[in-house]
Every structure is written in structure tokens, then in C-alpha cells.
């Protein structure tokens, strides 16, 4: 891709919803129900509005959307992810999975408000933010966060909490890779360190920028990958590739489960796994469509893309199983669905429904290959296929985003925020795909190195695995002194 600085992002539908009208009638920009904007309309949008002016640029529909989206993303972690993972392990480790996810969420939330938000979403350098909002100082009920549209703001707390849910779920995704054989305390320490050295930097690199009303005057205040023009609507790199690679590194360093490959370890409750997958699907609408930060046509687009890509991926996996083994399985269907959800994540606000379906099909097939063949060939024990589904699905989705975002394919293209108000940029598919590849590569490298250092460090300092007998008895009893079931 050309080295020229490009500013891309989720298209500002509010502004471009009625492009033909745009030039002619400024009044139309009063669109989308925001009286707020009406204030601005008189003399056009306001560059770099003050906080007082921002207060008039908030729409309660957006605020509601961000809050409920945050609740949906929390739902994805607890109970959804916990159940999806928990159902797949043996009874004796069920409770440990539930506990790990529940406590990772709790710990991550505290880390996020303490310094995570500041490191990820304040100005610093291209790699990491600063400490200006440590302990959320300066954030209050009357500060606002920018969206992708000029002169549209949301309460900053809503932005903080929405992003918080992402910081909560990402480390929780990792645990699936070494499920059934990890000690609890080192895992908690890992969570804090990994957030600090892998998640916050990558979130900053991918998502931090000065905002559409400020970027023109601060053309270098942004994260590295954002500056490259990498497209990642809802966190394909930050969440899924990040977690997928960390999981792979983790399962390699932690080592295989006792009996791996010899004993079959059938899911102890496909019912729980199905509940988890279903709630993941439901919650993912908050994840993807919520990432639009506004409740407009683009949010609806991200929503429908999330729906159909997932459906396509579930169908694809079932068809593969039907041809390959003669029977479609529920585990296959839900695995496919999650692969589809992962793959559509970076593309959800850029693709069209029909290209989303194709992306869902493709991601499902590629993840199948990794989960069913590559893993067994290479012999690593990624218990719940965190790498195979989140890593591979994330990479497929991130790169494919460069293709499906092309307006020629019905995509949303990119928005040039270097002009004020922002306008759509010209699309170069090949260049964009290269940018995506670079972004993926950077993420993979960063998280792999950080994760490896952390896992090795903890292995030597605290140890990562329980004693062999404890592993055989199950982590529920040995780590937590409880059983999941006492029927």
C-alpha cells in the first residue's frame, strides 16, 4: 500500500447517508434524529468542538445503543463464553473454566479503569497511550467521546465501558487453548500482564485516533495501524488474532494434557456449549454493531452482516461434515458459527450482506482445515481450538476485509478524515489488502513475543500446571475445592 498517510475508519453514515444530497442541502445533515446536530447545522459542522458544544452533539439513541451493546458484550463473556468453553471440557474441569472466565472478566475490568483505558485511548506515541486518564481522572458524566461521524459524540463513560467489555473478553478467550491444565493464580497474573503488554498496546495501535473533528489539526495523533489505514471494524486483530496467537503460544508452552490423543475427551455437555454459542451470537451484535458507536444504518449493516456470515459459516461446517463424515454435528454447527462470527468481526461494518455470506463460508472451511487436520498433524494440544477458530478466523477475516470493503463489491470503502468534514476516500483493493496483511503480521508478532515471554516467565516463577495427580483429579476440586455438579 502507498505510504501516504490515509485515515480510514468505519464510515460515518450519518454524514454520508445521503451522499447526493450532501453537496446540495446542508440541512439534510440534520439527519438521524439528532437535534444536537441541528445546533451545528446553521453554520455547518464545528471543528474541534468544546466539551460544552459536544454536550449538544449527543443523541440519547446512541447512548442507549452503546450501553446495551456493552451489556451484550459482557453477556458474551459471562455466561456465554464460559458455557461454550465449559461444555466442551470434561465434567471435572467444568467449574474451573467457569471460574477462570468469571474472574478474568472481573480482574480485567479493574485493570481497565485503573490504567488500561488511559494506556489504550489517550494520546501517547504510535504504540501506546499515556497516563493522563489513569484512574479515569478527567473522565466524568459530562465528558464525551468521539464517534466516526463529525460532530456526533457519546458520553465518555459509555465509551469507556464499551471498550472495557472488549478488554474483559479477550484474555478470557485465551484460556480455551490450555483448558483442563492451568493453575488459577498464574493465570490471573498472566491476565494482568498480558493486558498491559499485549492488549493495551495493540488496542492503541489499531483504534486510537484523535477523532473526526480533531484529526485534521492533529494529523499524527493516532495508533500505528490506524495510521497505516488498516481496517478493523470491531476487533479482528485486537481481539481475535491477539487471543488466538496468545492461545497457541500458551498451549505450546503449557504443554499437552495428560492422555492427550489417547483418551477421547467428549464434551461433557453439548447443551451448555450450545447455550454458550447462541448467547455468543446474540451478544456479538453488541460487539460488532456496537463498534459503530452510533445507532444508524451502518450499525444495522454491521448487525445483518454479523447475522448472515454466522449463519453461512454454520451451514458450511455442517455441509463439510455431511460430505466428510456423513453426519452434521452440533459441535460442528456451533464451531462454524463462531468461526463466522470471528471472521466477520473486522469486516462487519464494511462488507455487504452477500459478501459477508461468502466470507462466512470461506472462514468456516479454512477453520475446519486447521481444526480437523493441521492441529492433529502438528500435534499441539489447543484444547478448545482458540488458535484454529479465533486465530485463523481472525486472520481470514482481517485480510478479507480489504476485499469486501471495496465499494465495487458493495462495500463501504474508507473515509478520509484528513478533510473536514470527512469524505469517502478512493479505494485501492490491492493496496488495502496489503495494509491488512501488514496489520495482521504486526499483531501476530507483537502478541506472540509478549505471550511467549509472559508464559515462560510464569512457568519458571510460579509454574503453570498443576501436579499430575491434580490434573487427573480435575481442576475443580484441586484448584477451587468444588464440583460443578452434585446431583
Amino acid at each position, binding site marked *: 500500500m502507498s505510504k501516504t498517510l490515509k485515515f480510514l475508519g468505519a464510515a460515518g453514515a450519518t454524514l454520508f447517508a445521503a451522499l447526493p444530497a450532501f453537496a446540495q442541502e446542508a440541512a439534510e445533515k440534520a439527519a438521524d434524529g439528532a437535534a444536537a446536530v441541528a445546533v451545528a447545522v446553521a453554520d455547518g459542522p464545528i471543528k474541534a468542538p468544546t466539551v460544552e458544544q459536544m454536550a449538544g452533539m449527543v443523541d440519547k439513541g446512541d447512548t442507549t445503543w452503546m450501553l446495551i451493546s456493552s451489556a451484550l458484550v459482557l453477556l458474551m463473556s459471562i455466561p456465554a463464553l464460559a458455557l461454550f468453553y465449559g461444555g466442551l471440557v470434561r465434567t471435572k474441569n467444568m467449574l474451573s473454566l467457569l471460574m477462570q472466565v468469571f474472574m478474568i472478566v472481573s480482574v480485567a475490568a479493574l485493570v481497565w479503569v485503573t490504567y488500561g483505558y488511559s494506556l489504550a485511548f489517550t494520546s501517547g506515541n504510535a504504540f501506546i497511550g499515556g497516563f493522563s486518564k489513569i484512574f479515569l481522572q478527567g473522565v466524568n458524566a459530562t465528558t464525551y467521546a468521539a464517534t466516526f461521524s463529525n460532530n456526533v459524540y457519546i458520553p465518555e463513560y459509555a465509551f469507556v465501558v464499551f471498550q472495557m467489555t472488549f478488554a474483559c473478553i479477550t484474555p478470557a478467550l485465551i484460556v480455551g487453548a490450555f483448558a483442563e491444565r492451568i493453575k488459577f493464580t498464574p493465570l490471573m497474573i498472566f491476565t494482568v500482564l498480558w493486558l498491559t503488554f499485549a492488549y493495551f498496546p495493540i488496542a492503541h495501535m489499531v483504534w486510537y485516533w484523535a477523532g473526526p473533528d480533531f484529526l485534521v489539526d492533529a494529523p499524527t495523533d493516532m495508533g500505528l495501524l490506524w495510521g497505516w489505514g488498516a481496517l478493523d471494524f470491531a476487533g479482528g486483530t485486537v481481539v481475535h488474532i491477539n487471543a488466538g496467537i496468545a492461545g497457541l503460544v500458551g498451549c505450546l508452552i503449557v504443554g499437552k494434557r495428560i492422555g492427550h490423543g489417547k*483418551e*477421547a*475427551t*467428549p*464434551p461433557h455437555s453439548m447443551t451448555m456449549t450450545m447455550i454458550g454459542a447462541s448467547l455468543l451470537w446474540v451478544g456479538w451484535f453488541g460487539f460488532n454493531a456496537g463498534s459503530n458507536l452510533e445507532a444508524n444504518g451502518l450499525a444495522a449493516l454491521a448487525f445483518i452482516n454479523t447475522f448472515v456470515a454466522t449463519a453461512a459459516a454454520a451451514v458450511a461446517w455442517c455441509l463439510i*461434515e455431511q460430505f*466428510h*463424515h456423513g453426519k452434521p*454435528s452440533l*459441535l*460442528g454447527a456451533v*464451531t462454524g458459527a463462531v468461526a463466522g462470527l470471528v471472521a466477520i468481526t473486522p469486516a462487519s461494518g464494511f462488507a455487504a450482506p452477500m459478501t459477508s455470506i461468502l466470507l462466512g463460508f470461506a472462514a468456516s472451511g479454512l477453520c*475446519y482445515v486447521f*481444526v*480437523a*487436520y493441521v*492441529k*492433529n498433524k502438528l500435534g499441539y494440544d489447543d484444547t478448545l*481450538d482458540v488458535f*484454529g477458530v479465533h486465530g485463523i478466523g481472525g486472520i481470514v477475516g482481517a485480510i478479507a476485509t480489504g476485499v469486501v470493503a471495496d465499494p465495487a463489491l458493495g462495500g463501504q470503502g474508507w473515509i478520509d478524515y484528513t478533510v473536514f468534514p470527512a469524505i469517502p476516500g478512493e479505494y485501492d483493493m490491492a493496496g488495502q489488502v496489503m495494509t491488512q496483511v501488514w496489520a495482521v503480521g504486526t499483531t501476530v508478532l507483537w502478541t506472540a513475543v509478549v505471550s511467549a515471554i509472559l508464559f515462560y516467565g510464569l512457568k519458571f516463577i510460579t509454574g503453570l500446571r498443576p501436579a499430575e495427580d491434580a490434573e487427573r483429579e480435575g481442576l475443580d476440586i484441586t484448584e477451587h475445592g468444588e464440583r460443578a455438579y452434585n446431583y
Partner: protein
Amino acid sequence: MKYIIAIIKPHKLDPVREALTALGVSGMTVTEVKGFGRQKGQTEIYRGAEYATNMVPKVKIEVACASDQATAVVEAIQQAAETGAIGDGKIFEFELAGALRIRTGDTNETAL
């Protein structure tokens, strides 16, 4: 008295129960168990990877009966439980030294 333990396929429980009732057996006790035998278990497939499971769900039936009824009970179970496929299960026969009905205190044959 005899005590018969039979390990059968789960979906054969109803036919076996009917066969035993027809015979006049007044009671039985049923446990869900897992069997390991020649039937090495379905090949189970998880996310495309195949595993040979060796634990197959079975049902264990226990029937106490008078000695002279034992042969009939064994035969009835065998006929009702047979599918001809591997994993149909086994029937074991034991000497029963004593029996007692808790409710009434009846002992031995009258207790069954």
C-alpha cells in the same frame, strides 16, 4: 434364590422390562452404567478429529428371583435384548443368600 445382573443396550430396556413383567417378575432395579468390551465404542468425531471411544453407555438390570425362575428370566432377557450386533451385553447369575422386604419384613422368596 438367584440374582441376575444383565448389562444391555439402553434402548432395549423397555422391551426387557416388558418381557420380565410378562414372566411375572415383580421387580427389578436399573442403573445407568458405562460398558467397556469388544464393542470398542463408536468412533466419535469432535471437530473433525476422530477418537475411538471405548466406553459405551449401557444399562444394568438387577433381578432377584426364585431359583427355579432363573432360567426363564435369563432367557427372557436374552431374547428381548438381542439385536445380534456387537455390544448386546452379558447376563450374570449369582447365588442369592437372603432377601428381605423392608416394608413388611418378609424374607427370602416371599420378599421378592
